[in-house]
């Protein structure tokens, strides 16, 4: 069970809604993933062109919790503007704070992210900042009162998996709010690893939407996250340098 602010979720998978090959595949992937939280971006409508179908308008929004992001913002003020527009839809009160500080790596601007989070908390939002894997920054965000910390595994859309598991485990260890590993997940193994580290959830998009078979990958991610969580709760064995036989060493018929 994942609890963010006063909201409770059965699924620990948060799914992005960008870049699927078709709405049909996307709908099926979303359904099969059993994700309850879906992320969206806020953009200008294409009013000067022929009306285009919109995924959200085809979705039964009452079944999902919408998590709009502030992607496109480069300053705290821009992020707050986007967040307010998202909230004005009347469909959501959570916001993924995403303030990009570098176009090439798409890494978040830590100073603006902190500032935006503070401003949005004052406005009464449920605030989930996407952040780098900086341990001290995560602590500073938590001290502000954010409702979850979302450190990246590696750059957005890179599929490189978890580059700094040590930092992530430090963040997980110190945090009293949920830690959701966001960005950079490439494969089910990465998602399982995040959960085995003790993360409360995983947010991913491209790993599913750009997979050869997004629907099948959605299922794989769901299972990996469940498996990783179970493994974490079960408690893995300690690593040892040498072999220790699993079979009894007494009563061998070869001696």
């Amino acid at each position, binding site marked *: 069970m994942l609890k963010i602010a006063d909201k409770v979720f059965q699924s620990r998978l948060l799914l*992005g809604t960008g870049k699927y090959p078709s709405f049909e595949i996307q709908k099926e992937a979303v359904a099969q993933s059993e994700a309850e939280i879906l992320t969206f971006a806020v953009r200008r409508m294409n009013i000067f062109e022929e009306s285009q179908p919109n995924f959200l308008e085809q979705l039964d929004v009452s079944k999902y919790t919408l998590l709009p992001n502030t*992607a496109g913002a480069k300053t705290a003020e821009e992020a707050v503007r986007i967040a307010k527009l998202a909230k004005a839809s009347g469909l959501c009160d959570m916001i993924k704070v995403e303030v990009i500080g570098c176009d090439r790596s798409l890494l978040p601007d830590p100073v603006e992210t902190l500032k935006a989070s503070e401003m949005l908390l004052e406005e009464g939002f449920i605030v989930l900042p996407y952040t780098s894997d900086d341990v001290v920054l995560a602590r500073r965000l938590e001290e502000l009162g954010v409702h979850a910390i979302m450190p990246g595994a590696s750059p*957005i859309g890179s599929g490189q998996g978890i580059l700094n598991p040590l930092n992530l485990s430090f963040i997980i260890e110190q945090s009293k709010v949920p830690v959701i590993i966001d960005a950079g997940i490439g494969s089910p193994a990465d998602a399982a690893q995040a959960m085995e580290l003790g993360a409360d959830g995983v947010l991913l998009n491209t790993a599913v939407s750009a997979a050869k078979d997004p629907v099948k990958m959605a299922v794989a991610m769901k299972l990996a996250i469940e498996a990783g969580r179970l493994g974490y709760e079960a408690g893995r064995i300690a690593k040892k340098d040498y072999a220790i036989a699993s079979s009894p060493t007494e009563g061998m018929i070869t001696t």
Partner: protein
Amino acid sequence: MSIKLNGELIELNEEVKNVQQLLAFYQLENRLVIVEHNREIILKDQYESTPIQHGDEIELVHFVGGG
């Protein structure tokens, strides 16, 4: 009169005098749309009472796929 709509300078049809009429003109009444008028968010119950004037800046935004 001309206004800036979604970043583009446009000449507005004379019948369009408020936000409600603007949405109707672009056939967006039944779409999921969020309106920002001169940097102020306009909620549904304010559409009709929000006049559009020359030089106004209006953004019509919505949710799209994203991560």
